[in-house]
């Protein structure tokens, strides 16, 4: 399975039930009570992943080693 297929599969798993709620194909008292939250949840997932990604990248840029001594070592050689 290619990575593309994996991601499409994941998207289907998340968006399938979500679409069912959005289009009122699936109805239950619980869904009606939580409709607002349920409709937001894919966007909340994306936003959370975005925040996580930005934090990870920022930390990795900050902690990227500067190997000045390696450059000096080569200059001597």
């Amino acid at each position, binding site marked *: 399975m290619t990575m593309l297929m994996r*991601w499409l599969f994941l998207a289907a798993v998340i968006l399938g039930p979500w679409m069912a709620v959005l289009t009122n194909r699936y109805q239950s008292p619980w869904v009606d009570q939580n409709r607002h939250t349920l409709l937001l949840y894919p966007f909340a997932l994306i936003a959370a992943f975005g925040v996580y990604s930005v934090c990870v990248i920022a930390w*990795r840029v900050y902690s*990227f080693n500067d*190997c000045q001594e*390696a450059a000096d070592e080569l200059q001597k050689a």
Partner: protein
Amino acid sequence: MGEDDAMYTVLLPTYNERENLPIIVWLLVKYFTDAKVEFEIIVIDDGSPDGTLEAAEQLQRIYGEERIVLRPRAKKLGLGTAYIHGLKHARGQFIIIMDADLSHHPKFIPRMIALQQRDNLDIVTGTRYSGDGGVSGWDLRRKLISRGANYLTQVLLQPGASDVTGSFRLYRRDVLRRLVDSCVSKGYVFQMEMIVRATRLGYRIGEVPISFVDRVYGESKLGGSEIVNFTKGLLYLFATT
């Protein structure tokens, strides 16, 4: 396994490296000799106008034809075909690929060899992104692009290595042959394709932290076209692997 007396072949594709070649070869000879390891260095020069080939011939006279092997080509033909070309004549059971411009220090090679032997690996790749690994001469912008691109790659491709575009690696010869044959990308996307396909094929990959010194005697670039090429390569591998 009998790999204690294995031979190692370094593939050095060069283009206008007349200044750097004698230094890199001297360092390679030094570290291989210190480690008491059999080796040969194959210089694949793509018709450099600056006389790299003449410099290589001089080195061959100094270190011997057993150690320095010349496999020049008439013009610039790309990295993938340079490896194929060099591999045809490689005598080592293990192949080391690295840049000839001194961004990669040969002192890391004994560590790669040791890790390969300890864990019986198929590939050992140098990594700038973990442990003591790092870079020299990169500004904030370049670090940001590099880290961002690397993160995106990790998320989308799960490549099985922390440094996907690195070009300082040790391969089992047959593994490198097979990978080179199945990879179509150019430039450093080629390195990315190699490691991703290796992971998909189930090869065992290890990592050694390295420092990457950006072009001490040359000039570096990271332009818009490189970013476009990287994105294309990423999407290609995303859809096909």
